[in-house]
């Protein structure tokens, strides 16, 4: 097929798709290993979704409580993920996170400090000790800016040495990658278009790192930015790799619900950490009614004790408002369904009666602003209205923990939110930012080693033509009536929201699967008007295809997993089932483009890690035969 | 015109600004107030009279250092002879006003005010300025503003003198101590406003602690810096308040010295 549009061509050793925390960390590592590295992102440099992270980055540095160490962090992560995590990822993450934080500091990051001048750490849901390195409530911004400035530092070094800042490391902003190219059964490059001009680009490279972030925009109510369209998930699927754990989607319990324009916008967990309480329309602190059996010993069952916890954490149990995110989100959902919701369909989150106004303004500056400027609500005077919002996807590309190599596609690597395994069925707050750096770095190393061992793999004309044809499709008329991509997107979001949302049933999931198939048909008839030149309709038309694949995997895997665990709640199977813990669901594409979901066994945790837990605790999660077979036993 | 917002490549629009609010009001008010002050001051300087009414002295004429000063007004003696230019006696206030004038001309706040309102670069934010070329404070004459700190230190000396004047006003007309008049309040208010203006100055903030890299190694200077920083946020207010009070103080002395009113004594 001839190609009427201009096409630029670049050649690199490794191409990194995504300029969030994971992508940038991978790029630094690859450049330092001597590779010619390109970073590609959809928006401007420095705007990636990571910028929105607020609370902090978990690492067991033990600056605030010296009892903390990697073993404790590992245990917390496994518990949070309900033991479905890939043990090796959780282990590497817990061990390496402190180094990654310290490294940021050497690159210029300015975290908040303790009295001794060390990096300060804060409490967060699910973490036994204060563990989150932070800068006020803008930690993600600090991370992205520091990484961005690290890239600049490396470029300045190259400029001094070679007279060209961008010779070995270059950022290509506002390019969307639409295909991973493969030749000889291995990655040979990527294909995409410049958002500004609509011109097409091909990057030839033997190794590609996917660091494309999340899928939030597949849902109607989300805390994610427009970039979260699951591109990396879809790119990997189409390249022949596998997505696992896609049924696990984290709904953050507290997103804004009013006004509609900001519905879903995150209200940080720190509000509850600092004393905010959840009440229903009857003014009742309902969370006391929702403490699950497994957590009974750790959470206060009366208001007096819960209130004492804020000042004395050793002698009192935590308030139930600080239960893991999935529990709180479900509780809010039930209250609203039972008709005890707030005016606009949420519940109330109140700090106004708990803390003096000036303390609120000081501790939660951006929340104060957010409500003041976007909802005309003064949170020092009135309660906020909040409800669950789609926040994070635990599922993603199945990768090798040590090298971040994607399953089934030589030359493809993945790190960050787009990769799966680290968080199991539910992610703890703060574990993502550290995940980005730990595995971003490993992906950079993995790619460097791969390139050094395998050398070049030229792109064939055939691969390019196929990719070009896909991009051209939205401008061609389909057979059915022309579809407006914006409206189709809105319809999809409604479906995911209603049918594969926070509480799921077999009937709904099956219905969702059907609808998604329908949409896939309709997508063929999407017609974009105007030109290619910075045309958002064209952009969204291509993104839609990705979101449909993601939604398809979520619905498909959700239908199969007949239990409730972490980010997957089935009304018809409300209990966690140890037998299901042994299984990951892998999603792939068949040759004819159908979504296929299959069960794969979860890797066994070695004894030295198992021994970090009490047998009692393990018995809540594991099957009888597993417990019997445990060699050496635990103490 | 094809520079600035009308440069080739920028979004084509014929308007200098699309602002709809009254952006011109602020510069207009600034011009009006500053001009009135300048007119009044010039008039008073060349009037060369009614600046002393024991024990009150106008801030425009203190310290009166010239041999031409009226009797009793020369606190620090009269080292300067009578200077005539083109047959005109230079009024003693000239020697004094050079310093406060320099202080205010180089003040970071006043610079903002007059660059915007008199020079219109820019008249208001996002309103195109009328000049074809702009080099700001990179070259003479405007580079001189970098000498603000010298005027700041000179200003401190004046503050001391005007404070002394305020203290001296706790006397009656016969220069006996222990009396308070309306004039006392006026002079004290004047001195206070000037101190606030000086303490809130950016140079003061820099000198007292801002130039340090490690606050934690200088706890006292850090405290001082914190206090000055707090004042500094109101520097603009102090700039206007002190300007107006200085003029009013002079005006009060004028009224008393010209026997228009009587300086009422509380005790």
């Amino acid at each position, binding site marked *: 097929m001839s190609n009427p549009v201009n096409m630029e061509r670049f050649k690199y050793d490794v191409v990194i798709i995504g300029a969030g925390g994971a992508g940038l960390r991978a790029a630094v590592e690859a450049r330092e290993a001597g590779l010619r590295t390109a970073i590609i992102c959809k928006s401007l440099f420095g705007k990636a979704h990571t910028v929105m992270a607020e609370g902090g980055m978990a690492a067991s540095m033990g600056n605030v409580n010296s009892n903390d160490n990697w073993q404790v962090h590992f245990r917390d992560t496994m518990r949070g993920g309900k033991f479905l995590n890939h043990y090796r990822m959780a282990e590497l993450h817990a061990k390496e996170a402190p180094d990654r934080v310290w490294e940021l500091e050497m690159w*210029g990051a300015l975290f908040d400090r303790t009295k001794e001048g060390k990096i300060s750490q804060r409490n967060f849901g699910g973490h036994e000790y204060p563990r989150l390195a932070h800068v006020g409530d803008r930690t993600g911004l600090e991370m992205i800016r520091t990484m961005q400035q690290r890239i600049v530092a490396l470029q300045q070094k190259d400029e001094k040495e070679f007279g060209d800042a961008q010779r070995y490391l270059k950022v290509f902003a506002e390019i969307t990658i639409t295909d991973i190219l493969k030749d000889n059964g291995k990655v040979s490059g990527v294909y995409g278009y410049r958002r500004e001009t609509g011109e097409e680009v091909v990057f030839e490279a033997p190794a590609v790192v996917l660091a494309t972030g999340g899928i939030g925009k597949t849902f109607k109510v989300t805390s994610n930015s427009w970039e979260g369209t699951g591109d990396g998930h879809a790119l990997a699927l189409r390249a022949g790799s596998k997505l696992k754990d896609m049924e696990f989607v984290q709904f953050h319990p507290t997103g804004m619900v009013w006004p509609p324009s900001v519905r879903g916008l995150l209200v940080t967990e720190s509000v509850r950490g600092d004393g905010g309480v959840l009440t229903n329309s009857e003014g009742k602190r309902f969370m006391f009614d929702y403490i699950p059996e497994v957590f009974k010993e750790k959470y206060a069952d009366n208001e007096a004790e819960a209130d004492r916890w804020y000042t004395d954490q050793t002698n009192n149990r935590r308030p139930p408002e600080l239960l893991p995110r999935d529990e709180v989100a479900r509780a809010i959902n039930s209250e609203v369904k039972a008709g005890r919701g707030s005016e606009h369909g949420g519940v109330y989150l109140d700090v106004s009666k708990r803390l003096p106004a000036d303390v609120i303004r000081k501790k939660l500056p951006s929340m104060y602003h957010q409500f003041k400027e976007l909802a005309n609500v003064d949170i020092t005077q009135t309660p906020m209205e909040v409800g669950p919002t789609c926040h994070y996807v635990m599922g993603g590309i199945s990768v090798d923990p040590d090298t971040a190599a994607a399953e089934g596609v030589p030359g493809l690597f993945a790190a960050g939110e787009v990769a799966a395994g680290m968080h199991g069925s539910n992610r703890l707050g703060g574990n993502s930012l550290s995940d980005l750096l730990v595995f971003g770095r490993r992906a950079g190393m993995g790619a460097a080693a791969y390139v050094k061992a395998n050398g070049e793999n030229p792109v064939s004309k055939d691969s390019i033509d196929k990719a070009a044809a896909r991009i051209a499709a939205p401008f061609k008329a389909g057979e059915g009536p022309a579809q407006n991509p914006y409206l189709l997107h809105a319809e999809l979001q409604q479906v995911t929201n209603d049918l594969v949302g926070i509480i799921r049933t077999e009937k709904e999931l099956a219905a969702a699967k059907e609808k998604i198939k329908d949409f896939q048909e309709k997508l063929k008839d999407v017609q974009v008007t105007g030109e290619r030149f910075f045309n*958002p309709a064209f952009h969204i038309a291509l993104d839609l295809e990705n979101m449909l694949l993601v939604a398809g995997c979520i619905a498909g895997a959700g239908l199969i997993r007949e239990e409730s665990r972490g980010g997957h709640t089935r009304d018809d199977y409300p209990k966690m089932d140890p037998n299901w813990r042994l299984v990951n669901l892998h999603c792939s594409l068949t040759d004819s483009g159908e979504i296929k979901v299959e069960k794969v066994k979860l890797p066994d945790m070695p004894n030295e890690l198992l021994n970090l837990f009490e047998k009692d605790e393990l018995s809540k999660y594991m099957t009888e035969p597993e417990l019997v077979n445990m060699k050496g036993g635990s103490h | 015109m094809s520079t600035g917002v009308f440069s080739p490549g920028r*979004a084509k629009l014929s308007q200098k600004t699309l602002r709809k609010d009254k952006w011109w009001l602020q510069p207009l008010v600034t011009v009006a107030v500053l001009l009135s002050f300048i007119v009044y001051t010039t008039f008073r300087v060349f009037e060369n009279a009614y600046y002393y009414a024991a024990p009150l002295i106008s801030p425009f004429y203190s310290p009166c250092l010239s041999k031409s000063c009226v009797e009793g007004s020369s606190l620090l003696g009269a080292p300067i002879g009578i200077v005539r230019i083109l047959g005109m006696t230079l009024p003693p206030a000239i020697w004094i006003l050079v310093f406060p004038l320099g202080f205010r001309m180089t003040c970071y706040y006043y610079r903002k005010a007059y660059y915007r309102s008199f020079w219109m670069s820019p008249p208001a934010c996002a309103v195109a300025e009328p000049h074809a070329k702009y080099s700001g404070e990179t070259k003479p004459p405007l580079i001189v503003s970098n000498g603000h700190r010298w005027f700041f230190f000179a200003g401190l000396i004046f503050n001391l003198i005007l404070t002394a004047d305020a203290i001296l006003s706790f006397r009656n007309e016969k220069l006996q101590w222990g009396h308070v008049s309306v004039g006392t309040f006026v002079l004290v208010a004047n001195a206070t406003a000037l101190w606030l203006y000086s303490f809130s100055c950016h140079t003061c903030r820099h000198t007292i602690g801002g130039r340090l890299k490690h606050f934690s190694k200088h706890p006292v200077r850090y405290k001082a810096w914190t206090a000055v920083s707090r004042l500094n946020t109101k520097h603009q207010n102090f700039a206007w308040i002190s300007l107006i009070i200085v003029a009013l103080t002079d005006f009060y002395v004028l009224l008393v010295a010209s026997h228009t009113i009587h300086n009422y004594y509380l005790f």
Partner: protein
Amino acid sequence: MARKINLKIWRGTSKDGGLQDVTVDANEGEVVLDVIHRVQATQMNDLAVRWNCKAGKCGSCSMEINGKPRLACMTQMANFAEDETITITPLRAFPVIKDLVTDVSYNYEKALKVPAFQPPADMKPGEPRMQQVDVERSQEFRKCIECFLCQNVCHVIRDHEENKEAYSGPRFLMRMAELDMHPLDTVKNRKEMAQDEHGLGFCNITKCCTEVCPEHIHITDNALIPLKERVVDVKFDPLVRLSSKLRK
């Protein structure tokens, strides 16, 4: 309750363009970006606009609304009178690409010219000790979301294209100040560089950058003026130079 809003949106490219009238619904609690999105979905499918987070955190949706540089996602429709026609244009200090999207590469070029942070050569990761009071000043500047509204409003380059070469703009002068105040930075001549290579002297402290900053950073008072004072220390004040020589 939806109400009808009259908008004038600039549409065009670097070659030509102008304001176009549109009427569109606006609902309670919406921001300008919502309304632009509605125009996009219903009337001008190919209207180009940049945005990401819709929460005032990424600094992508910078544009000029009724002539004022603002974030579209943080400008509430309720700020405008019922019958007011709202004019929306791209940033006017940078070349336009299409509709509301401008070419902000100037800023990235300037970013590349600010010498990177350099900790002491013998310092190892994990070793730094810094007091909160020592990091607070630079932390304020690190709140910057790089919306470039300050760069856009600064008359030095907005009104004088030819100054772009010599002047880095408030964002990057602030970055110089941030590093000069960083407790562990060892680069010695940042002040001189700020004046000689980044054009600090062009700034006439008229504070428009501060007025438009959505993060409410006191750019002029806390970064630019202190930086100017530091420059005076090393370039215009013989006393300070002498005393620092004596101390050595």
